[in-house]
């Protein structure tokens, strides 16, 4: 299976990464190289094989439902490019 430049643009949109025309062209070739490489997986008989979701068999540990952290708004917003009053500031989202 291979992709065309229009598909690359669509995927870039999904991934929220702006690509120039030149980049889209170049990446189409690179992605097709990778997709060509992974095509060999089609050779494998995977009928009746469960997908592997965990490398070590384990049930997820649960923790007690108690508050053990919090009240650190300054730390949480400390690295923000723009913040005010413990909020993260962004361009308007909703018209």
């Amino acid at each position, binding site marked *: *299976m291979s*992709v065309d430049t229009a*598909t*690359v643009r669509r*995927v*870039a949109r*999904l*991934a*929220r*990464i*702006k*690509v120039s025309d030149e980049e889209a062209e170049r*990446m189409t*070739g*690179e*992605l097709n*190289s*990778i*997709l060509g*490489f*992974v*095509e*060999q*997986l*089609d*050779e*494998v008989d*995977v009928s009746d*094989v*469960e*997908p*592997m*979701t*965990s*490398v*070590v068999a*384990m049930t*997820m*540990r649960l*923790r007690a439902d108690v508050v053990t952290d919090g009240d*650190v708004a300054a*730390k*949480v*917003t*400390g*690295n*923000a*490019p*723009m913040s005010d009053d413990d909020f*993260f500031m*962004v*361009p*308007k*989202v909703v018209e």
Partner: protein
Amino acid sequence: MTDLTALTIAEARKGLAGKDFTATELTKAYLAAMAAARELNAYVVETPEKALAMAAASDARIAAGEARALEGIPLGIKDLFATEGVHTQAASHILDGFRPAYESTVTNNLWADGAVMLGKLNMDEFAMGSSNETSFYGPVKSPWRKAGSNMALVPGGSSGGSAAAVAARICAGATATDTGGSIRQPAAFTGTVGIKPTYGRCSRWGIVAFASSLDQAGPIARDVRDAAILLKSMASVDLKDSTSVDLPVPDYEAAVGASVKGMKIGIPKEYRLDGIAAEIDGLWQKGIDWLREAGAEIVEISLPHTKYALPAYYIVAPAEASSNLARYDGVRYGLRVPGSDIVDMYENSRAAGFGAEVKRRILIGTYVLSAGYYDAYYLRAQKVRTLIKRDFEIAFEAGVDAILTPATPSAAFGIGEKAGADPVEMYLNDVFTVTVNMAGLPGIAVPAGLSADGLPLGLQLIGKPFDESTLFSLGAVIEQAAGRFAAELWW
């Protein structure tokens, strides 16, 4: 005073206990060595004030007879680990200025055992690469050079800074991470020892995530004993990482020097690739002979799905990465490039912030997870993963204790040498290592010889889940037989 940076961790530990020198003197020796080695570009940030403060605290502890396991030992930390208040950027532009308000569990364990932080080490951006050439801070020069050549070589990746720093003796040991080979391949390229423990052995909390089902932290060190010492401190169960496993951490150092008589070593025939370099094959045979001489039994085994590990990895890892890297959007941390609206801001920030390899992997990952392709790619790759793991389980059930393979298909190459158009060529560096991450098993790379050009070559041992001790025992046998290799100082 003899050059303190020439001491291994075990030797430094002894010297500090015997009051031959102080922790402050040891740290100062490393800081000087680091300053003299800046051309290597192994460190992205040096933390001399912090290091000296930590060393002073260690000296107080030693004087009071309260020395902990790693008291006063100066370490370098891969830029992927969150170090409180200190630059942590995963060698990426998109995390510009990020200083975590928290410490990763692994590094916290090291500081709790008295280690000293020298600085943050260079790496491939977001741990995506096999040569340290995708770093926002530029490539790392390996301390190793081909005989009679000035050509700058890669130290491997993604933990290139870690491996180079250990080999150049500008830290006593280093932390690193391994998702597809990023500890073992650079260790093999630089004549150092690197171990990727079993998935779940070390906590991933506070480590910038690349592929959550594959990532694992581990040490790179000068020898097998040092690697065992570091792993003992790094490993722990962690309630903050639900994938970390609650098993006691053995005294790994005790396994170094233990007898390997009667151990069954599997030699997987599928790792003998068509066109495998003669010197790699020759080294593998030497390793087989050394283990046999030490009393191990050698058996040929088959891991039939070996060749599918690399393509399956290049679906699973980018898919997980596309999800993990979605958080870098210019909102809460890092680089923000303004846009006409919020989506434009996301798109601009991510386009400017991520390097080319990272973008490639995010796009592949997004594509294989997208509607209509999920079954054909991601689900299929996860099924192949089950088969890869099953191959190993069958071998271990048949009585194999560990598996011996080459670590890399070649010695280190030149910086820029693989800058050609095809990204897959770089991926092939990991052909021997990715199977281990896909199966969640532990794997160690031990220096085993030099190439015809005088560059390090390593052998890999793959173990049963949580049986890192066996890897240290076998690794020590190879190390004893192969001898030690040190890069000549040219910087």
